[in-house]
């Protein structure tokens, strides 16, 4: 009897969270799906009409979509590469005992707490500015021609900024995983004559594999939606050179007021994110049982 009461109490306690999240997810998503099938522009109110799959055909065959898809993949891939390799090296470094280790760790993780608009503007102006920026000063110091980063290498520059923000995340997670590695195992390998490189390849790396998978999956979810960094630095330009899918949908919706087209783009973005999400959910679900 008591358990029955607890059980119904439990259900009651879960209701607000489940209900609000359900409404939050299903209502806007259903609306997006519905809008994506309409010809609907905010500049022409009252002219909505059924469009079938026209928006999708239009969005998917637009050269901007191809460019944005490639840019999204390059951005996500580039940041992942930098943060996984850099994060592993940093984690190995921070795992060594040295003077002021705790302070250095704080310095290394700091970029993660800087709001995206601040880090983007600081990099854009004070570091990457072709005349007054620090990079330009360093280039001149070596007698080189300063580079106009955001004009000539827009996607690369955005990748650098975003990688700087996410490097601490990878470092922190890989460091946490590294510290859970059994010391005896390493010592045993050392006694058997394994050098530092083979110890890293055969013991440390396999131990980090799971944490690396988690980093890749979680970062991918967030990186598919990079927005503020692009908005305040390049506005997606020049042309579509630094436009990703998220920015393209934003531009379609709030700059061109094309509700139908933007909704179709939104649905495409949802499908892309879901492909990654399926893997992540499985991984975490497995962890929940263990």
């Amino acid at each position, binding site marked *: 009897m008591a358990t029955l009461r607890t059980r119904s109490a439990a259900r009651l306690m879960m209701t607000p969270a489940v209900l609000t999240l359900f409404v939050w997810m299903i209502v806007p998503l259903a609306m997006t799906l519905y809008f994506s099938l309409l010809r609907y522009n905010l500049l022409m109110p009252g002219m909505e009409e059924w469009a079938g799959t026209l928006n999708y055909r239009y969005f998917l065959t637009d050269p901007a979509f191809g460019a944005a898809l490639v840019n999204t993949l390059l951005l996500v891939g580039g940041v992942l590469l930098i943060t996984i390799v850099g994060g592993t090296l940093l984690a190995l470094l921070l795992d060594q005992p040295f003077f002021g280790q705790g302070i250095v760790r704080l310095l290394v993780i700091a970029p993660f707490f800087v709001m995206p608009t*601040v880090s983007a503007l600081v990099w854009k102006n004070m570091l990457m500015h072709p005349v007054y920026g620090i990079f330009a000063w360093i280039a001149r110091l070596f007698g080189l021609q300063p580079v106009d980063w955001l004009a000539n290498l827009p996607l690369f520059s955005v990748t650098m900024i975003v990688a700087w923000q996410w490097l601490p*995340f990878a470092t922190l997670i890989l460091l946490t995983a590294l510290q859970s590695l059994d010391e005896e195992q390493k010592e045993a390998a050392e006694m058997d004559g394994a050098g530092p490189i083979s110890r890293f390849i055969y013991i440390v790396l396999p131990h980090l594999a799971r944490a690396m998978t988690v980093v890749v999956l979680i970062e991918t979810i967030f990186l598919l939606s990079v927005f503020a960094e692009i908005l305040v630095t390049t506005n997606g330009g020049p042309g579509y050179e630094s436009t990703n899918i998220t920015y393209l949908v934003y531009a379609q919706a709030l700059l061109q007021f094309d509700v139908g087209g933007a909704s179709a783009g939104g649905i495409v973005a949802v499908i892309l994110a879901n492909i990654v999400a399926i893997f992540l959910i499985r991984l975490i679900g497995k962890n929940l049982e263990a």
Partner: protein
Amino acid sequence: MARAITTRRKVTFTIIGWLVGFVIFFPILWTILTSFKTEGEAIASPPHFLFFDWTLQSYFDVQSRSNYFKHVMNSVVISFGSTLIGLAIAIPAAWAMAFSPTKRTKDVLMWMLSTKMLPPVGVLVPIYLLFRDWGLLDTRLGLVIVLTMINLPIIVWMLYTYFKEIPGEILEASRMDGASLAKEIIYVLTPMAVPGIASTLLLNIILAWNEAFWTLNLSAANAAPLTAFIASYSSPEGLFWAKLSAASTLAIAPILILGWFSQRQLVRGLTFGAVK
């Protein structure tokens, strides 16, 4: 002999470690230094690192020209408001899932996680239109609602992983002693749950403070939190680096300090308990 080698090794790693730390932290350090310069000094080339006339002028300018304090308050209200409402909704749910799990609990948790993976652009258009029709665009209330919803899955998950670690036997014992559900929650569970709730609170304030998709799209002059306010410095004519730096330093300092305290919880919260 062995000792000498370890000392040399330690010194080597100290030098490498501090150099790497300095390089990674440099953009933040540079922002802080620039905030104490005059506008002319800020764009000096070659740059002046420490030897310049330190001044607080930019901090005063930022406040007097743009009512900076209003945006600070917006950030505070939005991040604290959304976190507290989120906790109020999530604590009962996480409690129920941790202590009275059913066959479907895991599915519910997984489904909540999946809503977090929905890209924001997937729902940008309808949310924008609904907010426009309901008069929620550029209001604090609107942003509180959105940020509560987008962070709710993380709050539920974090609380769940913390509550899971509280031994169920203690609850059973108190139940045997005749404690009611309410008493059980107030006297037994709450004291043990406070550290977990505090960590969740901290991480969520950080996430909400730095959120920069919805705040940029749904706010303008009135409700703009610091993320959106600082974005207004991106206009080409806004090349005032000392002021940008002063506004940025104030915006990131509190959260940087909170973040340093919560590095452990960050790993746990952002990996949904997959890495502890």
